[in-house]
């Protein structure tokens, strides 16, 4: 690949996408900026029960929900009288490749089989690669996973190396790259060369595959407690998890508050060679969550099916130290070794439970498998090797990339609220970039209202202030 080649392949991006996803994204456009989101989701052409059936045949879903009684008890030891919500955990690690990502991969691979593709390609350093590789193996499809894996010294994060191992074990080719957005050019080249299906995280198939998780959560909670959950915490990065789960919750008639939880890694640049190995795990990175919330279409498809601001009631940040704390407590108090993905939500849940009444319920909507490289001991050892200090301390002492402070006591846990009003303004600002406000059509205004859940008057106020700038 050279810069000229990468330029050419990017020029052909739309054609490559159309062929590799089978969706004519241009046909969805309805205004200057607006496009039809529900029509995009409609390309799945299956209801949630049919999706669940496909997943059942593929060994995916119907995971156990259990009450984390000892963790609830731990939170209650430091809660105000009458407070300490019941914490429930949906054990998604029980899926074939060890995470909820199997739900996303199952529908994508099913689609690739139906459409006659010879193989699938996914650009991911995370569990999704393992899930796609596993599902491809079940279907006899070839699989390629493109990973951002190493810094320029050739050092790889233990968690990403573990993902590479799993993908290779499932028979996938793994292309491992150094840090940088040029991974996308390589991804496009591979799609063009192989003519495989683009099993992007951001297609409607990938997001619809998660809706079953939202539905199961409501059903499980009705069985266990007699009613739906009061609050569901969802680990949030690219936005698919929030979007798919929340859509499923709605389908099942839930009124639960939807809370996105990300790991506070503000200040660490996503494309920085040096910063790459100064984070301990790749999950729920605020460096993905913030930009993907305000500009969802920065993904590897023209229009992303993951639109988190349409569904988020709250968005919170926790520290890496708190995630390590939650991981350790899940192991020591509940006898469950699980990885950092769901434990990002669990850290938030342990803090939020302390502020909510005893008879209310919080669901942590996923767990992931753990193992060498994904385990806190390995990750904290890696942090120290890379010059990050690890100590006992309060959440306020965490400095992304420099200091991991692990709470000693559960009352030291907390969450940092993300201002969703400002986040919505940021989405609008980026969505209308290059389009004069006066040129927006009524359908564009309606689209922005759906994107942000703002009332017409709130939206008009934001647009007026943008027009004045």
């Amino acid at each position, binding site marked *: 690949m*050279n*810069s000229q080649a*990468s330029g050419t392949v990017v020029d052909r991006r739309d054609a490559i996408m159309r062929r590799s996803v089978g969706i004519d994204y241009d046909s969805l456009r309805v205004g200057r900026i607006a496009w039809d989101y529900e029509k995009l989701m409609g390309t799945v052409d299956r209801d949630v029960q049919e999706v669940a059936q496909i997943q059942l045949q593929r060994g995916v879903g119907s995971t156990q929900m259990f009450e984390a009684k*000892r963790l609830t*008890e*731990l939170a209650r*030891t*430091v809660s105000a009288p009458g407070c300490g919500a019941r914490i429930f955990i949906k054990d998604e690690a029980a899926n074939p490749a060890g995470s909820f990502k199997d739900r996303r991969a199952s529908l994508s691979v099913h689609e690739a089989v139906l459409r006659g593709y010879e*193989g699938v390609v996914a650009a991911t350093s995370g569990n999704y690669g393992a899930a796609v590789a596993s599902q491809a193996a079940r279907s006899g499809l*070839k*699989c*390629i996973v493109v990973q951002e*894996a*190493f810094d*320029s010294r*050739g*050092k*790889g994060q*233990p968690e990403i*190396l*573990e993902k*590479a*191992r799993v993908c*290779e074990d499932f028979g*996938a*080719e793994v*292309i*491992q*790259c*150094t*840090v*940088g*957005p*040029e991974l996308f050019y*390589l991804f496009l080249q591979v799609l063009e*060369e*192989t003519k495989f299906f683009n099993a992007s995280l951001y297609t409607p198939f990938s997001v619809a595959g998660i809706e079953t998780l939202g539905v199961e959560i409501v059903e499980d909670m009705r069985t266990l407690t007699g009613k739906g959950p009061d609050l569901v915490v969802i680990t949030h990065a690219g936005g698919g998890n929030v979007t798919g789960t929340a859509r499923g919750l709605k389908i099942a008639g839930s009124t639960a508050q939807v809370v996105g939880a990300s790991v506070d890694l503000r200040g660490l640049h996503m*494309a*920085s*060679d040096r*910063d790459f190995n100064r984070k301990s795990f790749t999950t729920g990175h605020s460096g993905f969550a913030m930009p993907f919330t305000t500009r969802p279409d920065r993904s590897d498809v023209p229009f992303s099916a993951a639109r988190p601001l349409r569904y988020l009631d709250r968005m919170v940040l926790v520290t890496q130290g708190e995630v*390590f704390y939650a991981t*350790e*407590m899940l192991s*020591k*108090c509940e006898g469950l070794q699980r990885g950092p993905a769901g434990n990002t939500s669990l850290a938030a849940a342990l803090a939020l439970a302390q502020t909510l009444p005893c008879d209310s319920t919080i669901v942590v909507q996923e767990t992931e498998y753990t193992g*060498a*490289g994904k*385990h806190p*001991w*390995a990750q*904290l*050892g890696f942090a120290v090797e890379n010059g990050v200090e*690890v100590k*006992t301390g309060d959440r306020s002492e965490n400095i992304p990339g420099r200091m991991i402070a*692990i*709470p*000693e*006591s*559960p009352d030291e846990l907390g969450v940092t609220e993300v201002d969703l009003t400002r986040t919505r303004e940021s989405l609008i600002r980026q969505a209308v970039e290059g389009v004069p406000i006066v040129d927006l059509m009524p359908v564009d205004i309606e689209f922005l209202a759906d994107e942000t859940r703002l009332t017409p008057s709130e939206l008009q106020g934001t647009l007026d202030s943008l027009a004045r700038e």
Partner: protein
Amino acid sequence: MSSDTSESPPPSGQLVGAGEWVRVHRVELEPSQRSQNLPADTAAVPFESWVNGRLVDATPLGAQADIVTLSGRKVRGRLVERRPGYNHTFGSPPAPLLASVMRARELLAAAETE
């Protein structure tokens, strides 16, 4: 070794046989060819890739080689490793986590005796 390319042995010229499982390295973009608007540290280094596969012809370590990957693609790159594997570990329990565990056990024990 795949888990840490920086510790790969320097190419020795040792001949690797056809059909062996190997790792090739490619410089995809030199720094001057990289994307605009990269952070300075990333812009200063090449964009590289590594892929594993079966070696097509006997080739000395360090030389250009063709491999066939698990997806059946043919990839050409510098032969950097024979029998690449994985050696990431679990590590050892860090003291701060142990402190949190001791505290949690005290809190739970106190709650149970109330």
